[in-house]
């Protein structure tokens, strides 16, 4: 249909570090050697922790959880761009980001191990716990961001979610509120191309996730999500914009979930080995390693030392986790509301009496 006037939009695609570890000079964010090494170390930690969790789960020492192997660049690159005063609002597949915020691994283990203590991060501020209800954290992030703006604090919010999450009404409402409010929040969609068994093309008919930004009149960008430098750079710029009062950004991190959806899932039911293999070849860790190698910042010896050190660290955290939690048995009655009310206290008393009587059930 011909028309008088047209409105035009475009969505850029960003990659800085290619699969061979070569940096696009024009786009290089110029991270120092030290920072590059730190980033690599964090990504390795996230990977090793994830793989350990998988083993723990298989041994019955951990509950069902959602592995993040393969998505380390998409989680750690953005976290590197955060200030401590920024807020992290995760979904459930950002282990690397949580660890980079300073959340001890044993807290993450406690979460997946079935204890509320896994949501308590002593000393770590402005980091919300894992969100299980897909997309529900998106409006939360917008509300936190509004609060930063309200308080005139120069802090921004980094909010993660998956490609499946973009289908939820809360994605839409959250981005729209944030956009209308020009709230300082950066939305990162880890487009790992699957929502359990649902492939991208059954989740949406749009070519990219990033173009959904057009609906909200905010910048959208598609980023190679296995490129930690691009993820860092895009997030860094978006956070700066946010803190400068220029409103939200939507970043699509094109990546891939290399493992199962959760440990209860069997991905062979819905996707091919070839597809997985193709993405294994794009492993973000390998890419980062190649960069370090090319800059002569790393060696096999250092790699071995790192793995050994990471193993010790993880062992220690698993130990803390397996020491268990020390709450009294009636803790479930403590936090219904801030105050105590007779109807709950009566039930607590009954519960305690039953426990003393040797009953194990409610």
């Amino acid at each position, binding site marked *: 249909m011909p028309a008088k006037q047209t409105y035009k939009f475009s969505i850029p695609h960003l990659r800085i570090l290619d699969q061979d570890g070569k940096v696009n000079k024009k786009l290089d964010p110029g991270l120092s050697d030290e920072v590059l090494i730190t980033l690599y170390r964090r990504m390795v930690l996230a990977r090793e922790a994830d793989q350990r969790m998988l083993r723990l789960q298989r041994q019955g020492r951990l509950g069902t959880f959602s592995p993040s192997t393969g998505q380390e660049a998409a989680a750690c690159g953005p976290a590197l761009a955060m200030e401590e005063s920024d807020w992290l609002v995760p979904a459930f597949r950002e282990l690397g980001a949580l660890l980079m915020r300073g959340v001890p691994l044993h807290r993450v283990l406690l979460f997946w191990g079935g204890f509320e203590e896994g949501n*308590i991060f002593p000393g770590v501020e402005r980091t919300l716990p894992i969100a299980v209800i897909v997309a529900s954290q998106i*409006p939360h992030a917008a*509300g936190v961001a509004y*609060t930063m703006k309200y308080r005139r604090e120069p802090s921004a919010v980094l909010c993660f979610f998956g490609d499946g999450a973009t289908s939820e009404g809360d994605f839409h409402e959250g981005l729209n509120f944030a956009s209308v409010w020009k709230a300082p929040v950066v939305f990162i969609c880890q487009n790992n191309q699957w929502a359990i068994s649902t492939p991208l093309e059954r989740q949406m008919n749009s070519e990219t996730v990033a173009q959904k930004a057009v609906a909200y009149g905010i910048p959208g960008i598609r980023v190679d999500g296995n490129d930690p430098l691009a993820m860092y750079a895009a997030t860094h710029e978006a956070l700066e914009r946010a803190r400068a009062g220029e409103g939200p950004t939507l970043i699509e991190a094109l990546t891939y979930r290399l493992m199962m959806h959760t440990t209860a899932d069997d991905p062979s039911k819905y996707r091919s080995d070839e597809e997985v293999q193709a993405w294994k070849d794009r492993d973000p860790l390998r890419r980062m390693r190649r960069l370090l190698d090319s800059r002569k910042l790393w060696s096999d010896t250092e790699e071995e030392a790192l793995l050994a050190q990471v193993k010790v660290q993880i062992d220690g955290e698993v130990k803390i986790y397996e020491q268990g939690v020390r709450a009294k048995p009636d*803790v479930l009655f*403590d*936090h*219904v*509301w801030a105050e105590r009310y*007779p109807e709950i206290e009566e039930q607590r008393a009954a519960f305690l009496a039953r426990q003393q009587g040797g009953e194990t059930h409610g």
Partner: protein
Amino acid sequence: MARMNMVQAINLALHEEMKRDENVIVMGQDVGVNEGVFRVTAGLYKEFGERRVIDTPLAESGILGTAVGMALAGLRPVAEMQFSGFSYLMMGHLEGHCSRYRSRTHGHLTVPLVVRMPYGGGVRALEHHSESREAMFAHIPGIKVVIPSGPRNARALLTAAIRDADTVVFMEPKRSYRAFREEVPEESEVWPIGKARVVQEGTDLTLVSWGAMLRMALEAAGEAHARRGVSVEIIDLLSISPMDTETILDSVKKTGRCVIAQEAPLRLGPASEIIARINDKALLYLEAPVGRVGSYDVVTPYFGREQAYFPGVDSVRRAIDETLDF
């Protein structure tokens, strides 16, 4: 002291609390420039500006979802659902987050916010504008559900709700918004959430009610007294969750007879829970079955037929008589 109606009293509490604490903000559809479709937020936008009185986009889940974020970050949002009939759209955040953040972090992160909503029938409103679904909210552990019955307690309980450390669903019987005026004290009052009030002492029968039904309860009790000399003790429940079982039980143990008058449909409504609690703790005191008054378990009819659907004074009267004559 000033005489005011419920809209004015709620508005007063909002003014006072916004003045007292700059973390208190008001948000919702048309609550700012337009001052709310019922004018409950009159004057707030002028006084506190658009930063603190936010005209939100038209999205209930977005309103509560962003309010949760604000509350987690330290604000005290008072979010309005324009009508309770649209509140089902925010049930995800209410059930999933408002109710749980405290317990899932053992008190480290909390969601102190208020969700205000006009509810209930009797004003010849459009489809979806007349339901009483307090039971749905009150069934969720970790949520408080408060229902004022008059200007004074509306102001005192909303003040309490705003200061409360947890999420309070504050349901405003819109039929009572401008139905009557009452003296409201000069000074801010904070009534404890979770406490019922004995609004009239009596010895023959306990009549429990809340919201707009309370006035009908009072009228029916007065009429029963005039007609047959019966002394009715009337309890204004005020809080559906937590629920003040003690006040009800004390009264029922004294009177031996009880009628509960709610506007909600009967099935799984609050009256059923009250009866269950009487069963648990005071069954042997009963001299007759507890009388239940409520709407029929049919779909709320359009307003052309709503009168026949909603309980009225005569419904309460009938239940009183049946309970007395059992």
